[in-house]
């Protein structure tokens, strides 16, 4: 158990450290805005502040018994649904690039309620699955009620034009339901329905349709919709084995848009090379393995579902981000966990990790049969 938490913490620490370094590297050449000063330093400071908040949240969550949140999860979910609907409210809701994703209260930094909603939904599903774990195989408790709750939250996120987050959340929730004991034959049809609906929306949304086409034919659309993805591939490809060296990236100089947020991975690849990109991938795989190990060792179902949910959210988000940057997936704005610039996401991720640590703290110590931890793994897979 101890090695899992250690590796988890190390992975997160390395990723955050790399993220901060790369944030400064990628943004140090950016245009100075109205506030005369280095944009890089400004962004780094802001990210450091969020990181500090995130670490406080992480430590707080880790030091609290996660089981205490169980009763509060419905209220938290209700609150976050309220916040989600507030993005449409005049004056409070903020629209950027045609998407209603942010709320801004006077004196507070802009906040993306979907981040909170994700965690709230995962927490809620965890407690729900524990409470109704014997009825999860049924239709009503197993699929109808949780699916409708999930649908409300996902739909709210979907309609604020954060499709990636909605799809990610739906997938995570599906995995959690399956893990909680819901039958596959109840999960698959709504999933297919959802996929069909998504396809319908895609075909009727010119912006996204263009992105899909751009993904299918990157060469043809490299000056249009596929520009960002194409330039990101160029950045990665030109990095080679060891990269151009920290700070020497060229593609961040006005070629890859969003190079310090969603596409920071391409700059890592360009400046530090395959060594770093593979390391990041390996770190995320390690993180997923450790997270799922912790979930498996949790003392109760809530911990299991929660840990699995958080882990799959982090892993899936990392996969989607890196997939987009490497043009494996169509372009979809999604930050790379722990690395991309973006306060609310970092905060959410750190609090989630805190919860995961809390799960591990209160996990049942495994019966020590052998000293070699690696021999425990086969037992896990074919048991």
């Amino acid at each position, binding site marked *: 158990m101890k090695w899992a938490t250690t590796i988890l913490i190390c992975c997160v620490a390395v990723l955050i450290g790399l993220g901060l370094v790369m944030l400064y590297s990628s943004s140090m050449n950016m245009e100075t805005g109205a506030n005369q000063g280095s944009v890089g330093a400004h962004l780094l400071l802001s990210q450091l502040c969020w990181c500090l908040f995130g670490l406080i949240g992480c430590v707080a969550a880790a030091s609290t018994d996660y089981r205490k949140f169980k009763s509060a999860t419905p209220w938290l979910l209700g609150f976050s649904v309220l916040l989600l609907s507030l993005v449409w409210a005049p004056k409070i809701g903020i629209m950027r690039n045609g998407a209603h994703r942010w709320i801004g209260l006077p004196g507070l930094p802009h906040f993306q309620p979907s981040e909170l909603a994700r965690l709230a939904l995962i927490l809620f599903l965890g407690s729900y699955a524990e409470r109704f774990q014997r009825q*999860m195989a049924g239709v009503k408790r197993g699929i109808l009620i949780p699916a409708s709750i999930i649908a409300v939250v996902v739909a709210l996120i979907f309609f604020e034009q954060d499709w990636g987050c909605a799809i990610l959340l739906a997938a995570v929730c599906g995995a959690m339901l399956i893990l909680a004991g819901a039958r596959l034959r109840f999960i698959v049809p709504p999933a297919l329905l959802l996929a069909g609906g998504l396809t319908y929306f895609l075909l009727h949304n010119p912006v996204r349709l263009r992105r899909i086409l751009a993904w299918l034919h990157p060469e043809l659309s490299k000056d249009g919709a596929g520009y960002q993805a194409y330039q990101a591939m160029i950045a990665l490809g030109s990095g080679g084995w060891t990269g151009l060296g920290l700070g020497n990236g060229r*593609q961040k100089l006005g070629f890859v848009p969003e190079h310090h947020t969603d596409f920071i991975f391409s700059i890592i*690849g360009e400046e530090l090379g395959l060594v770093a990109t593979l390391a990041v991938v390996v770190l995320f795989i390690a993180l997923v393995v450790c997270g799922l190990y912790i979930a498996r060792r949790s003392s109760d179902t809530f911990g299991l579902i929660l840990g699995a949910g958080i882990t799959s959210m982090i892993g899936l988000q990392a996969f989607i981000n890196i997939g987009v940057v490497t043009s494996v997936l169509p372009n979809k704005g999604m930050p790379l966990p722990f690395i991309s610039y973006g306060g609310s996401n970092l905060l959410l991720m750190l609090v989630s990790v805190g919860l995961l640590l809390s799960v591990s703290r209160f996990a049942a110590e495994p019966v020590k049969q052998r000293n070699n931890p690696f021999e425990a793994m086969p037992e896990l897979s074919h048991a």
Partner: protein
Amino acid sequence: MTVATQNRKLSWLAFVLGLPLAGLGYRLVDLQVARHDEFQALADRNTVRTFQREPVRGQILDCRGILLATSQPAKVVCADPTLLGDYRLDAARALAPLLGVDEALLADRLLPRLIVDNGKTNNSQYVALKRKVPVETWEKIKAAMAHLCPGIDEKKLSKRQRTSLSYLRTKAIFADEDQIRVYPGQRLASHVLGYVANDEELTGLNGIELAFNTNLCGVRGWRKTEMDGRHRELVKYRDEDVAPRDGLNVVLTLDAGLQNIVESELAAGMEKHSPISASCIMIRPRTGEILAMATLPNYDPNHPGAFPMEALRNRVIADIAEPGSTFKIVVVSGGLNERLVTLNDVFDCEHGQFFYANNTLHDHESFGLLTVEGIITKSSNIGAAKIGIRLGEEKLWEYIHRFGFGERTGLPLPGEVAGIVHPVRQWSKLSIARIPMGQGVAVTPLQMAMAMCAIANDGVLMRPMVVSRLEDPSGRVIAHYEPQPVRCVAGPQTISNMVRALKTVATREGTAVQAGLEHYTVAGKTGTAEKSENGHYVEKFFSSFIGFFPADHPELCISVVMDEPRDSHYGGLTAAPVFHAIGERAANYLNLKPDIDLEPPVNQTLTADGGGGSSGR
């Protein structure tokens, strides 16, 4: 739910999450290692730019460092039609007067055009509107573009429209570096300088500009650097930066002051006698340096296209004609040098009519008995013919060649011709009588002048020099051209006799009394050649005077040639006065030491005006 199922499900989840991530790892290896070269090239295409760094074309200077040709920075005004969009006509209206082009034509050029690049069709983003635009005009163009369409209320525009308007005003019209060739002296020495093509490199097309083009144009440098997405240079990544080597300066032997004297006096002579053309060469006999070389009509090398082709030709080296009587110096020198005649030998000049080889030779006046010196003084054709007959065909031919006729002088200017001197076997019976008087051969004015210089230079024929040295832009001498003797044409005794004879020409007895100078003894020879058309002589003349002074220590040799003077055709009446005017002023300009001691007080001599020297006769 059993622990076993949960474990299985969790393992599946780990598999489902981990496998795609591992797949991404494979994708990364593919992108970053397997396709590294491909993407490296694409990344380079994003940022790496190579610029030519054009050298500045060298200057052309006269021997005192006066600028005759120089290069000034200019701009090529270009447009990006894709940024002009709907404002094309407004831009054309604003730019047409500044560029001095037709508005409709300009608007047409600003139309977006499709270009095919690598099989892909793109909108052309580069149209060169005008080259050689002075920097001041470019500043005006920039200002005009910045205030284009003042009526538009920017607050009402969308963000996109505002951006395109600002692109229109700042980026749609841009400029590349260019240079413009300037000849500050305008027509001064235009035939020596030549002119350049109106292209990017200012390629020399004529004169020194052509002959020394490789030295003048310098060596192009380049800069390999990188640019960010907004086309700003990333100086940190400046890989290769080779400065251009500016062209060398060509320092001529020409003296702008003398050139000006020559051209102005030649123009005055032109006005008086209205010939088709007139040329003059001023040479320093001891070295062969050409101090001035002018041909009228001339042209302004700043706008060579505005002048007819005839005006562009350097007649001094490119035109050949029968030299006429000036050529008699060859036969007389030959006769003296071979000791076949002496200055005091007497020839019967047959009173102007000499029957020879079924032909009658004429003199312009009837002469009886003339000494050899008298033949020069009076310019008797019959006397020269008789000397020629005495010299013999082979020897005559040899001396013609010794004096440099029939071959190029080697002046480093393009377009020089060798002239026509037939070999002896092609001569007719009459040739031996006609060639001594300057008929039946064709020479350039420069060849004739150089032959006279050989006599002025103790018999040593020099190669004419027009370039004194090449300097780099900081003034260091790269190449120095030394005077080059070609050959000795005659012995010292011959030469001193020749000078003695030639001195008599510019006296009351001689044919060119008007050539005489107040303070210097002039040795020279007139020439009046009848021009032939289709093998028959017509009543058109080619008049010349070539002389040098001070006769015993020659400093200047001046040749004046007029093609078809209208009022009078004798060289002594048309070319000689011009020689006189040029000689007086040139001697004054150069402060030459007089060799004629005049009785009047010294101070009067010092204050005497060079132009008014005709009182000497």
